């Protein structure tokens, strides 16, 4: 470009770079020396199990939606490694600020399957979950939870608590001013917060190239004055390692970090979407070769940490867990209509209490 050419003689006053992290190739082979935690077979298997459970759960949730027993639902198909790998690196006392697609992170944190179903079934009680009480619920308005993450991290700083806020959002969210404002603030105060962008290449039907002109999402952190890194988001080892380092650094007072997790949304955006309208089967097929579960399985099997019998046992186990959760979900008693007022204010003002009584009366007969 002319402007670049013309100013080529000017002195450079700042330089930045973005690195890429991956350990496992799509076929499960090792690209570079694995991080320390990867020698812990139990841990790797736990990550594997979490991803498989998520996939089984997703499939069931879609079936429930298709049969009218669940509302709109967003699957994680193909991108299970991102939320599982990230949450896996958090401590209980850290705070998770998830997006609506981060079921994997919530499950890892201890939220129950039936609670997630309850939320997507249209019941607020699903957000009053058994994961860490301080974790945030699913955030539907894209990117709007990023300022919360900065506020949470600021609270940690103020109270000198060695905790970290971890905020997950999508590639689409990186176009929102909220996310930029939050990152910029985190950069000013070097807050203990890690931003993880799940770059699944699509925001519903909008491909990444219409979302941003930047070569990577990781470089967006440069604007906020901290580091960004691109990670193979289909490699759960890389996700977990990147999140672990970033969280440890944040906890250690070294400030925020941004992780771009490159993956691919193999499914429809949600059950309301039909992705065949805007992308080709070929494109999707190609990405199936890179998906995270087969990749980790290949590695585990190659290392003799995992076998056919394990796989079968896991399948049964996931199936049973999910079915049991679905039963509990379906058996959950309905709330009475007037309970819609019960958590509006700590103390419902009398003027609205009258409305509550009216509503209760209507449905008493």
């Amino acid at each position, binding site marked *: 470009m002319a402007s670049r050419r013309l100013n080529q003689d000017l002195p450079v006053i700042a330089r930045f770079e973005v690195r890429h992290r991956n350990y496992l190739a799509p076929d499960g082979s090792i690209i570079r020396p694995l991080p320390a935690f990867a020698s812990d077979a139990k841990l790797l298997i736990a990550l594997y199990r979490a991803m498989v459970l998520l996939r089984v759960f997703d499939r069931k949730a879609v079936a429930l939606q298709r049969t009218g027993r669940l509302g709109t639902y967003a699957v994680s198909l193909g991108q299970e490694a991102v939320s599982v790998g990230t949450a896996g690196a958090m401590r209980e006392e850290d705070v998770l600020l998830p997006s609506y697609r981060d079921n994997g992170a919530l499950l890892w944190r201890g939220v129950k399957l039936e609670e997630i179903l309850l*939320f997507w079934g249209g*019941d607020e009680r699903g957000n009053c979950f058994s994961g860490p009480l301080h974790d945030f619920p699913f955030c539907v308005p894209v990117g709007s939870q990023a300022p919360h993450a900065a506020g949470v991290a600021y609270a940690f700083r103020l109270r000198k608590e060695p905790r970290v806020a971890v905020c997950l959002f999508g590639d689409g969210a990186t176009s929102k001013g909220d996310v930029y404002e939050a990152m910029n603030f985190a950069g000013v105060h070097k807050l203990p917060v890690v931003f993880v962008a799940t770059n699944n290449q699509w925001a519903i039907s*909008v491909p990444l190239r219409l979302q941003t002109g930047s070569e990577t999402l990781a470089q967006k952190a440069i604007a906020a004055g901290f580091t960004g890194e691109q990670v193979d988001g289909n490699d759960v080892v890389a996700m977990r390692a990147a999140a672990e380092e970033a969280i440890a650094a944040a906890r250690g007072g070294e400030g925020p970090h941004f992780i771009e997790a490159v993956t691919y949304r193999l499914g429809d955006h949600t059950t309301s979407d039909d992705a065949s309208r805007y992308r080709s089967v070929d494109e999707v097929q190609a990405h199936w070769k890179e998906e995270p579960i087969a990749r980790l399985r290949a590695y585990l099997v190659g290392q003799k940490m995992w076998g056919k019998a394990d796989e079968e046992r896991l399948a049964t186990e996931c199936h049973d867990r999910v079915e049991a959760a679905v039963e509990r979900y379906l058996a959950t008693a309905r709330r009475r209509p007037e309970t*819609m007022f019960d958590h509006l204010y700590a103390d419902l003002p009398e003027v609205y209490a009258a409305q509550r009584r009216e509503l209760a009366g209507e449905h008493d007969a």
Partner: protein
Amino acid sequence: MPEVTLVEAVNLALGRAMEDDPDVVVLGEDVGVNGGVFRATAGLQKRFGAERVLDTPLAELLISGLCVGMAAQGLKPVGEIQFMGFIYPCLDQLVNHASRMRNRTQGRLTCPMVLRTPHGAGIRAPEHHSESTEAMLAHIPGLRVVIPSSPERAYGLLLAAIRDPDPVVFLEPTRLYRAAKGEVQDDGEALPLDRAFVLREGRDITLIGWGAALKETMAAAEALSAEGIAAEVIDLATLKPYDERTVLGSIAKTGRCVIVHEAAHTGGFGAEIAAFIAERGLSSLLAPVTRVTGYDTVIPMARLEQYYMPSVERIVAGARRVCQFS
């Protein structure tokens, strides 16, 4: 005449406007190849190209701000906000720029833009997909706020909104997108932007509503007629500026009024209509103007939303109370 759904009528009007005027540009999230999450812009990108039917990044403030900039250059942008729950980042642009550009520059720059968004609850969608905060918008001087309740009005009012030289927020009742069907002639005929529509005549009571709530309101009128109460039903259609004359005329006839909307009660736009009638129509009034609305609580997610919205029963009960008042 062909029968189309409300969302198809929106699509027809957009196509017609783009056909007629090369300055019309459609922009928003997923409006391009995907044709909009409700298919309101289906086929438009194919017909008019990706420059005129533009998928924006995921940023609502941006969408509204782009519209202001484009409009100042003489384009006629039609921005789409995917759900009304995501319109709030646009408010700064709507209040501080779109509605003021003409006044601020004393006519030198203007803002002929339209911002369309699905409105209202009842489709069992996730959080933030059920908003009806039209009252916030209808309070902004310099803006027009329009909400059709049938395919015909969607077509005619949207055309009018796009042709209007000032900014218009165009709310589309999500619940009626496919449920409302009607004959629409794609003849490019616009409807006026400051007129209410009398959907049903009656002399005992006036029911005023807008958007999807008119479905229950019409059903209520039907139920009332079985009880011998002849209800007149008015679709306000344009909330800002609203048609004072039609409202007052009806009240002069009936002397009784119920206003229906989905939005929360306190500070809803029903308050404006009720206050107006109570001031300017007091001498005709035989009973207090009553509002049947959503409750003053956060609209619940799918499981309870039906109890939040004004039901036929609540409207009938309200109307009955008003008719019994003496």
